[in-house]
């Protein structure tokens, strides 16, 4: 059944038909007809952000915490260019986003009209796909296709650029129906022969491990459940990337913690020494592998990924399975249950003994203090005081992000929103806005650094407008902490421009935004202050003054391999730990 309506009305109709409840956006000349259509309806609620980058990050938080597509509406020109950072972030972390951009009328395209930019040209490399709709007849199909492409296969952002005259034009709207895009058909089921080969490798392993990533989260709750089942069945150890935290419960004894540059000693050593690596939904990113030629030299590698281009991109694998994590895991679990091969229990016990030895080094240990708040301690207390609640965590980018990943323990998927691939400072605050909107009754905390959070601080205003009681927990060390740490490591302690003079008074800033401000300077006050933060039914900025000189350990220094980590206790040897080549390369 189709109905005649304007292009602008089609946009709203399509959003509603796709089950969209909220859209994050910012109006402007070239999207006014769509805003007019929003004004006239109740189905889709518009959330007015304060900057278009914030709109995309909010949509990312919304998407990541719900598994749904996040939606964005921005105007032409600066509206579109401001969204580019968010779109790139969503592309790198495979977050499903549909971003509708206004465009100048078709007859003005290419004329350098006011607020014109080549949106499809600019966003081509930072989206999964994009469209410029030049005929009203194409609009309904394109809108539905955009949702399909954003959410299926390896998810990602899709831009639909709609010129203003198309928004005014009238045409026939049709509902989404199952359609088969000729060229775009993501493969969900893995090749059974390869899955069999993988199971056989796994069964004969003496030192196996699971290395999982964000693909498990994207694949949905079923993938996490199946992963848990397979890990339990096999008794193998498991680690995960930053993006994959929560897919496997951190409280489980088989969990080794996060791996990679700031991963635990046990996870990285196990990666280096394993003989069979089962990588599911991760992509051998450079923060994970460290030095490539020394990456897990003795292992057979199994790689499950829905994106064929991820397989053999950085690391050559022995069994590459193209498919959706949940689908492949289902087959793996079934095969494992029915397979007659019995794993080598003795070898596995020895392997666990070795892992326990590494675990015994307590690589996350830090020197505690009774008069200054250690950032790790702050996260630990935050975790202890919020773990029994319905809590969602977002972060900015930097030291605080790594400490959050190390010290905040996730038991469930979709509870952890962070910018992994692009490393976008300023992600966490708007993402928290999106998460809180999707989960109004939950506790949503942005674990932040004072430098990152200032990049998108204006979204406090959004939080205040929609009465979203997000908690911004700032680990304030007055430095861009990770930059400072690298300068200490690599540049002789010359802290060029990494110290921020004239920081705002965050308590007053919170109040200026009609939120609530808390400052905490002593470890003894921390618990009380965190409880106060949780109880305030308003957006809160928590200014947690922490040790300015604390570094984030353990760390795989530049140019080193997994088995050459430096631990916190070795901090005084930092200078020697980095090779000359390493200084140049990273």
């Amino acid at each position, binding site marked *: 059944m189709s109905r005649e309506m304007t292009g602008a009305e089609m946009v709203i109709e399509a959003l509603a038909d796709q089950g969209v409840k909220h859209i994050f956006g910012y109006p402007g000349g070239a999207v006014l007809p769509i805003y007019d259509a929003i004004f006239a309806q109740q189905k889709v609620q518009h959330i007015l952000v304060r900057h278009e980058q914030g709109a995309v990050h909010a949509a990312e938080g919304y998407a990541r915490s719900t598994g749904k597509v996040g939606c964005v509406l921005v105007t032409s020109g600066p509206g579109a260019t401001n969204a580019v950072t968010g779109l790139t972030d969503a592309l790198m972390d495979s977050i499903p986003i549909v971003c509708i951009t206004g465009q100048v009328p078709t007859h003005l395209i290419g004329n350098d009209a006011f607020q014109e930019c080549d949106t*499809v*040209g600019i966003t*081509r*490399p930072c989206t*999964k*796909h994009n469209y*410029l709709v030049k005929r009203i007849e194409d609009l309904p199909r394109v809108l539905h296709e955009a949702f399909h*492409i954003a959410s299926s296969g390896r998810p990602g952002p899709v831009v639909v650029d709609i010129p203003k005259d198309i928004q005014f034009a009238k045409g026939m709207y049709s509902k989404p129906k199952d359609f088969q*895009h*000729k*060229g*775009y058909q993501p493969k969900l089921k893995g090749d059974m022969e390869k899955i069999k080969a993988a199971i056989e490798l796994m069964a004969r392993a003496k030192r196996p491990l699971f290395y999982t990533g964000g693909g498990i989260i994207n694949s949905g709750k079923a993938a996490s459940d199946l992963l848990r089942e397979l890990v339990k069945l096999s008794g193998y150890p498991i680690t995960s990337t930053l993006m994959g935290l929560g897919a496997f419960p951190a409280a489980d004894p088989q969990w080794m913690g996060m791996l990679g*540059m700031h991963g635990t000693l046990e996870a990285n050593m196990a990666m280096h020494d394993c003989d069979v690596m089962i990588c599911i939904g991760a992509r051998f990113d*450079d*923060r994970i*592998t*460290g*030095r*490539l*030629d020394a*990456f897990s*030299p003795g292992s057979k590698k199994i790689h499950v990924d829905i*994106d*064929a*281009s991820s*397989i*053999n*991109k*950085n*690391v*050559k694998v022995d069994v590459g399975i193209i498919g959706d994590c949940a689908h492949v895991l289902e087959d793996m679990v079934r095969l494992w249950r029915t397979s007659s091969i019995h794993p080598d229990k003795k070898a596995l016990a020895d392997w666990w003994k070795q892992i326990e030895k590494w675990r015994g080094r307590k690589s996350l240990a830090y020197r505690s203090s009774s008069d200054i708040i250690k950032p790790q301690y702050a996260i630990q207390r935050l975790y202890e005081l919020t773990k029994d609640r319905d809590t969602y965590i977002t972060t900015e980018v930097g030291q605080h992000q790594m400490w959050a990943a190390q010290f905040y323990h996730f038991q469930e998927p979709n509870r952890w929103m962070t910018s992994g691939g692009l490393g976008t400072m300023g992600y966490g605050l708007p993402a928290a806005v999106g998460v809180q909107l999707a989960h109004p009754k939950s506790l949503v905390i942005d674990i932040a650094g004072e430098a990152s959070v200032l990049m998108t601080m204006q979204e406090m205003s959004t939080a205040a407008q929609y009465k979203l009681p997000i908690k911004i927990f700032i680990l304030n060390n007055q430095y861009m902490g990770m930059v400072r740490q690298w300068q200490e490591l690599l540049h002789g302690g010359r802290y060029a421009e990494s110290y921020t003079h004239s920081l705002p008074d965050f308590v007053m800033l919170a109040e200026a935004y009609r939120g609530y401000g808390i400052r905490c300077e002593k470890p003894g006050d921390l618990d009380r202050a965190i409880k106060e933060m949780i109880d305030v039914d308003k957006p809160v900025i928590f200014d947690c003054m922490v040790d300015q000189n604390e570094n984030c350990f353990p760390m*795989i220094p*530049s*140019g080193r391999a997994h088995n050459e980590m430096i631990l916190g206790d070795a901090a005084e040897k930092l200078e020697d730990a980095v*090779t000359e*080549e*390493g200084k140049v*390369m*990273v």
Partner: protein
Amino acid sequence: MNAPSTSHYPTAPTAQLSEAHTLSVLVDNEPGVLARVIGLFSGRGYNIDSLTVSETEHQKHLSLITIVTTGTPMVIEQIKNQLDRLVPIHRVVDMTTSGRAIERELAMVKVKGKGEHRVEALRLADAFRARVIDATTESFVFEITGKSDKIEQFVALMLPLGLVEVSRTGIAAIMRGPEGM
């Protein structure tokens, strides 16, 4: 194994040798599709040695892009997978690994000269089965079709005889036998 590296960023796998591959890419004939392909190559640092694009089936809105690229086997594999990821791309076929591809190119070669040079140019053109498609009293334009090395050889021979300019189509490729792509 992987190439030696001293960085957290992966370096180019230099252990493997580069090789040239001809890829046939079947795409939807829609605006921007070529930009997507070219943008992918420039954005990810791949080479394009030759590129031809033309609509092949008007009714189905399909175009065929033939790309000659060079890279290590791992990079060639990446290129194919990255191309396959683009939404308007239907199929990517590596004509080189198939071993059953025919590759042809067309060139128009302008030669200016008088007397002996002019006669020699004509004689060579005849030997290469190049056709004269334009002539003045002091110039010829030859049309020559064939494999790229044949065209290069012809152009090299024309150089001392008064070569003015060359316009080449780039490589078009098709598979031998009854099956389509």
